[in-house]
């Protein structure tokens, strides 16, 4: 796919990601629906398949999930440069797109977090600040367990029986809970079982 990107398009992309950054309460993943609306439906800068694979690769790869944003920018740049096979110019535009979306999604939220947490730390003995931090603790525990549940469920719907995947998820949770085995061994085991078609 080839698209034309003018300087004002890049600027609009940057502004859009700056805005989404401030809306991404509890993580960038919650802004995915709006990114899809903007990039695929409204502007046609990415195909549906490019959008989906950007999210899927980032989920499977090591590192923070927010890197899916980098892949979206990279793909927009590649499209603007005539595709991945078009040579160095496309790769450079890909890197430009990557930088624009990543800086856009990171800068506002990190600046706000930096200022807000410093204020919170200076005022950490205040009753309101203590109540805020301690009061959210049970909410956070519930959210973590729910996130694990939703992530596990997201892999279902393939050819293998669902109980295979549940068994793997529960076994992984139990092993992490009771032992100190390195997490990479568990992920490797999951990859192997999946590649063999067992889950």
């Amino acid at each position, binding site marked *: 796919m080839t698209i034309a990107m003018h300087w004002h398009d890049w600027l609009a992309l940057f502004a859009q990601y700056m805005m989404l950054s401030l809306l991404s309460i509890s993580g960038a993943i919650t802004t995915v629906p709006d990114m899809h609306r903007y990039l695929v439906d409204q502007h046609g800068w990415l195909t549906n398949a490019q959008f989906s694979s950007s999210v899927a690769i980032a989920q499977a790869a090591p590192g*923070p999930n927010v890197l899916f944003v980098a892949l979206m920018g990279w793909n927009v740049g590649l499209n603007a440069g005539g595709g991945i096979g078009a040579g160095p110019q496309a790769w450079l535009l890909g890197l430009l797109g990557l930088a624009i979306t990543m800086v856009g999604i990171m800068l506002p939220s990190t600046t706000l977090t930096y200022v807000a*947490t410093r204020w919170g730390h200076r005022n950490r003995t205040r009753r*309101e600040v203590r*109540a805020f931090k*301690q*009061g959210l603790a049970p909410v956070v*525990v519930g959210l973590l367990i729910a996130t694990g549940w939703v992530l596990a469920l997201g892999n279902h719907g393939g050819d293998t029986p669902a109980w295979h995947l549940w068994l793997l998820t529960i076994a992984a949770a*139990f*092993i992490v809970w009771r032992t100190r085995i390195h997490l990479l061994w568990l992920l490797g085991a999951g990859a192997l079982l999946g590649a063999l078609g067992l*889950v």
Partner: protein
Amino acid sequence: MHPAPPDTAPSERPQPRSTGDLFTSFTWLALQGFGGVLAVVQREMVEKKRWLTADEFLEDWAVAQVLPGPNVINLALMIGDRYFGLRGAIAAVAGMLTVPLVVILALAVLYAQFAGNPQVAGALRGMGAVAGGLIAATGIKLIPALRRHPLGFGICLGFVAIVFGAIAVARLPLGWVLLVVGGVTCFWTWKKIPA
């Protein structure tokens, strides 16, 4: 730069030696985080390096969660800032992003060739199932820290169940759940703790 207050970083506790240590620690941490880094943050920061206690991890993560932006990036920024100020914050966030960014670009280029392979799809599925278990276990391991909570252990478990039901079962929008349930727990805690 602000000096690290003595009550948050007592000298007898393990802490990062330098901004370089922060950068490499968070790089290594991020590279272990398939399908999300949070489970690894808890394992590395609380259990292995012990830069944070379980209580501090819960509180910091709650703050990282309600502020906009990726949670684990916010968490890295807060930990880096605590020990080395702005330089530390930048080192921790850069460590979290730089090498994983190179890895993910390489994967995206590779993916174009292997997208249709069933073994690759199966491996991704198996890793996803394990990743779900890792995150859930991170939450389960933090439950004992709620025993010291001002609201009492039983009430805390009730709120854990409410949040789980609202997010995982009813699939309510997270913003509303945070606002309503978090509002109740914060206000109730505020009433319980001494001024």
